[in-house]
């Protein structure tokens, strides 16, 4: 069957009333958490994993993907109106967007962000549908060593290629690995790092770690900053509709942002932030109104917002076709697949095409829902920004612990939640990135499995890892991604990289 037929079949699955409901819940929740500062899509999916345990796998995954997309839309609202990016990938939007809002052009800024997100999301999702089968075909020739090399590349890009310190990125990653060894060894059944504690035999739950790091660590960090006075929410004044000139200045940045964002998300290069920075730089260079940049140029909102949504869709390419998460949200979505005994990858396209194509098609529908949610209803989301911080964070912690208690109502689990929460807080204080810990915990055991399989095939000869051309190329790229940024930083050219910091979402 061709991609078109698969996509049509997927649309039939996605149009089922229950799946539409799941998608609607997903995009609504996603927009809400995107708007709220302090919580992002990674945390929300982590919180929902235990709650959705008994629900239908297809529906839940549609909901998770909706949250991911929604989070990307919602983040722009916060950046534009509050100047505090709700998500790390909306930092650039705040640069020009907030200036526009202060100048009374908040409406057009929100509109260009929403429509740009829609255009990019639509094109990128179609791109996902057409690229995925090709990668699946390629992945069929991948053996354990190629998968291992691919994971090494993902480890390097997530932890140390971007961000401001190779040392701290790698330390975070290895902390994740150290947590990943806890439990029963998959191949021999021996217990590792459990010290006779039965609660540790199943290992550290990804949800517990993610909730602790993102919800509790963040809450502690914000609390410890003390009272910084109320934040100023810019009211949406004037028309929310874009003028003809706004349209004329927006459509090219949308398309350019999509073209920049999608490949960056699709490569195991981590983070939607990188695309947004590149798009901003591109728009700044190409604009006919350079004097407006820094004072509210609409191109500076349109391009990065499109890039950010396109790379969110791009992230799903390696996740669905290779089972390789490159962001924290994708890592937790992988945990969501595993919760239902599904392993994303080429096999899933063969064994469960209904689910995969239903998921891809539902993303197209989710995009239309998000456009409606974010344009006419934007006033509703703005109200979320006025929730006072005591109630906001009290609510976040209530739901954070609810998720953990629901998954495993034990005092030990809550103790781990607190311990990891304190760890997440200290890591924030000392400037360690959070995403590598989560990616290390979930991808570490998979990498170990592939490595041991590869070495079992070669009877313990490690040179086998480099003798496959594909694996050798991937490992070389990984080595370059580790060394080049380290050299750049050592020579004092690290500012650009730290701006590109791949972070939480």
């Amino acid at each position, binding site marked *: 069957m061709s991609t078109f037929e698969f996509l049509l079949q997927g649309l039939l699955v996605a149009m089922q009333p229950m799946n539409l409901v799941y998608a609607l819940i997903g995009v609504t929740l996603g927009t809400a958490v995107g708007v709220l500062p302090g919580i992002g899509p990674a945390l929300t999916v982590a919180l929902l994993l235990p709650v959705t345990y008994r629900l239908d796998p297809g529906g839940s995954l549609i909901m998770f993907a909706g949250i991911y997309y929604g989070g990307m839309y919602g983040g722009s609202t916060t950046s534009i109106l509050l100047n505090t990016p709700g998500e790390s990938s909306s930092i650039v939007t705040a640069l020009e967007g907030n200036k526009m809002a202060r100048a009374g052009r908040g409406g057009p800024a929100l509109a260009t962000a929403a429509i740009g997100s829609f255009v990019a999301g639509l094109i990128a999702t179609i791109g996902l549908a057409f690229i995925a089968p090709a990668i699946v075909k390629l992945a069929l020739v991948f053996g354990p060593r190629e998968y291992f090399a691919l994971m090494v590349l993902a480890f390097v890009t997530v932890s140390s290629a971007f961000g401001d310190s190779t040392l701290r990125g790698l330390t975070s990653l290895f902390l994740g690995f150290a947590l990943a060894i806890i439990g029963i060894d998959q191949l021999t059944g021996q217990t590792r790092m459990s010290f006779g504690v039965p609660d540790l035999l199943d290992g550290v739950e990804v949800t517990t770690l993610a909730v602790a790091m993102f919800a509790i660590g963040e809450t502690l960090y914000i609390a410890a900053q003390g009272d910084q006075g109320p934040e100023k929410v810019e009211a949406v004044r004037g028309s929310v509709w874009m003028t003809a000139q706004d349209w004329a200045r927006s459509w090219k940045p949308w398309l350019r942002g999509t073209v920049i964002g999608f490949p960056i998300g699709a490569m195991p290069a981590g983070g939607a932030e990188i695309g947004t920075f590149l798009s901003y730089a591109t728009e700044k260079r190409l604009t006919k109104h350079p004097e407006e940049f820094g004072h509210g140029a609409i191109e500076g909102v349109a391009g990065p917002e499109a890039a950010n949504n396109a790379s969110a869709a791009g992230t799903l390419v390696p996740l669905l076709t290779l089972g390789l998460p490159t962001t924290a949200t994708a890592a937790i979505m992988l945990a969501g697949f595993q919760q239902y005994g599904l392993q994303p990858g080429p096999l899933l396209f063969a064994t469960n095409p209904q689910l995969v194509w239903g998921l891809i098609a539902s993303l197209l529908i989710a995009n239309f829902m998000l456009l409606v949610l974010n344009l006419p209803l934007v006033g509703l989301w703005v109200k979320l920004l006025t929730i006072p911080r005591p109630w906001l964070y*009290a609510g976040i912690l209530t739901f954070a612990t609810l998720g953990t208690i629901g998954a495993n109502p034990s005092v030990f689990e809550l103790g781990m939640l607190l311990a990891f929460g304190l760890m997440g807080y200290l890591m924030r204080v000392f400037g360690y990135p959070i995403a590598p810990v989560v990616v290390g915990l979930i991808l570490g055991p998979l990498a170990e499995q592939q490595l041991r399989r590869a*070495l079992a095939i*070669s009877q*313990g000869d490690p040179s086998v890892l480099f003798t496959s051309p594909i694996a050798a190329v991937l490992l070389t790229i990984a080595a370059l991604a580790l060394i080049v940024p380290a050299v750049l930083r050592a020579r004092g050219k690290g500012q650009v990289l730290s701006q590109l910091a791949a972070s939480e979402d």
Partner: protein
Amino acid sequence: MSRGVPSSTRPKADKAAFGIAIFLAALAALIFWDASRLTAVANYSRIGPATIPIVIATCLLGLAVWTAIAARAGDFPARERQQIAPAAWVVGGLVLQMLCLKTLGFSIATGLLFAMTAAAFGKRKLYITIPLGIVLCLAIWLLFAGLLQLSLPAGPLEHLLRR
């Protein structure tokens, strides 16, 4: 990079960062110790359950040394001044919830957490926030334990409602 204080000569060694280096080294030692008691299953790939932990522990040890060097050079980024009191409220709330969960049930335990967190952010009127939190959590309990069949521990309040 200097850390708040203008450093005129060479940057001061970072004591807290040394702590991180010691933590990493201790973690590596713990993994080495645990790996040493794993029985090496003699198979022809020469790589068993202990191999990867040993590799990870070796890398952690290397990172510990690197961290210590960076700490000595004062290479860690500037840290903002942390206020202990509000963070202690949040931690206290989490500890309280953990201790009360089994005996007092989900609603009371989580209601206390809710109130303590609100207190951390400035809402100190506990006689208002505690009842508010408990009522809210009771509603959450009814929704999630009732409709979604999540197993949330029940206490006296929940038993009262269930009857």
